[in-house]
């Protein structure tokens, strides 16, 4: 995997909010690479700068020091090659579900029939075909996030940045959504940068877990993990129970290690 092309690279990134006495050092010396096909999950205590890092990569804010590159070029603003999914849905309520999904392609002036095709394909992908003409406020929280995902996917971005996309959902819906995002990532071979609070969520989705420290946010540890396929692929069967115990042992080991790191911080 590490042989894949580097899509996003940050070099010695610092971010200071404000100036003078009130300034906040949100990010300190962040060096991170995101390669094509990776599913990077970022964990860290509240206020440690996770969202700040995502916003820098998205191009919404500028780093104070250091560089943030996409495919070797400096990131200078938002761009449709980097799709973003926020915690609370940012679907436009004055547009139907369909129009929301079509928004990106339409902004890029694709031909009308291609737009329609894309929209149908991705609504299908998030299991919402047939909901295209609904108003967004008729949807449940989980459905909204699925439309938001479809809207981003419709642009076929190189990388998808997600800031606690399931944070506002209840535990059961969240489970479904994790399954969905795993499948989409698999099928489309997407690259995903995913912020979460939830250690279990990170472990069950990621190919790499990045743990950040309290303010000022630094990267203190990275774990390469591979529980995701086992967890979500319905075909995976453990040959015997010892294999399963081994797997579970491994899972708990990493989980406890992460929790220890974080707790020792606090």
């Amino acid at each position, binding site marked *: 995997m590490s042989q894949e092309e580097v899509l996003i690279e940050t070099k010695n990134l610092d971010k200071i909010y404000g100036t003078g006495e009130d300034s906040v050092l949100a990010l300190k010396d962040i060096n991170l690479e995101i390669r094509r096909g990776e599913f990077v999950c970022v964990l860290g205590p509240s206020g440690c700068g996770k969202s700040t890092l995502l916003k820098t990569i*998205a*191009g*919404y804010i500028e780093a104070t020091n250091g560089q943030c590159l996409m495919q070797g070029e400096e990131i200078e*603003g*938002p*761009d*449709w090659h*980097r*799709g*973003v999914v*926020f915690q*609370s849905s*940012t679907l*436009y*309520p*004055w547009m139907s579900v369909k129009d929301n999904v079509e*928004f*990106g392609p339409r*902004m*890029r002036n694709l031909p009308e029939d291609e737009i329609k095709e894309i929209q149908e394909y991705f609504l299908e992908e998030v299991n919402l075909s047939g909901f295209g003409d609904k*108003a*967004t*406020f008729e949807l449940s929280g989980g459905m909204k996030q699925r439309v938001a995902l479809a*809207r*981003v996917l419709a*642009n076929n971005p190189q990388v998808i940045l997600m800031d606690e996309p399931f944070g506002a959902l209840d535990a059961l819906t969240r489970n479904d959504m994790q399954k969905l995002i795993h499948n989409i990532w698999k099928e489309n071979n997407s690259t995903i940068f995913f912020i979460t609070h939830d250690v279990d969520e990170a472990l069950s989705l990621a190919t790499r877990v990045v743990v950040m420290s309290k303010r000022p946010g630094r990267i203190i540890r990275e774990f390469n993990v591979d529980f995701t396929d086992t967890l979500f692929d319905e075909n995976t069967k453990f040959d015997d129970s010892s294999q399963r115990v081994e797997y579970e042992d491994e899972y708990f080991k990493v989980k406890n290690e992460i929790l220890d790191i974080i707790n020792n911080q606090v």
Partner: protein
Amino acid sequence: MDLENEDKVENNNSEAGTEKSKTEKVLTLSTWVVILGAWYIVTKLELFSPTLLPPPTEVVTAFFKLLKDGYNGIALWVHLGASFRRLFIALGLAIITAIPIGLLSGYVSKVKAIVDSVVEFYRPLPPLAYYTLLILWFGIDDKSKIILLFLAAFAPIYIACISAVRKINQDYILSAKSLGASQKKIFFKIVLPACLPEIFTGIRTAFGVAYTTLVSSEMIAATSGIGWMVLDASNFLKSEVIFIGIFIMGISGVLIDAGLRFIERKIVFWKGKV
């Protein structure tokens, strides 16, 4: 314990939504029946002179006479039409000027720095304070009347626009950018619709403010208009015409607001649902 139980009933009521229950409708109706009844009895007993409080019968008679003969030789609907023409021209002007200026002020704080203090200065002023100046500058035609109403209507829409832009969910704009929208498209496809609900509230407020200024605006150099009619009736102590004017204005105010609300529900269908 009784109190608690009563409370539960109340809770159930509010669960059923905000629609008026039957009892409440009856109460509202009774209130007006009692008011009208008291009015009738008090005048029947001749407790007050008819100039102070004309009997309802006299008001009704006067109303039909007005319908037939008009006031000052001008039909009642022409008076109404004259007033509403001024009102809606003013409101229209306010809408087409205040929305762009307001949105721009919300968007570019430098524009706000220029416009805002001027609006904030004139807004709380009593319209009658500067009406004479408007007359001096713009003459006695409808122009100065419309400008007076326009000024009244401008501020609420302008302020609503600024506040709307300020309140826009920034993530709406960020996600539009990440979806590849240009600045111009963001303005027309995101900012404008996102502000519409609040702009509409502003327009309704503007109508209300302009409406309360209606009579003032017809104080000078008018010979038509429902407001002028009331003022002229005051000059001749025609209380029954004052009452008619008040009823007409009260009812048409409520009707127009209902109309605006209807349009609002159609255009800003997502309001309150997000």
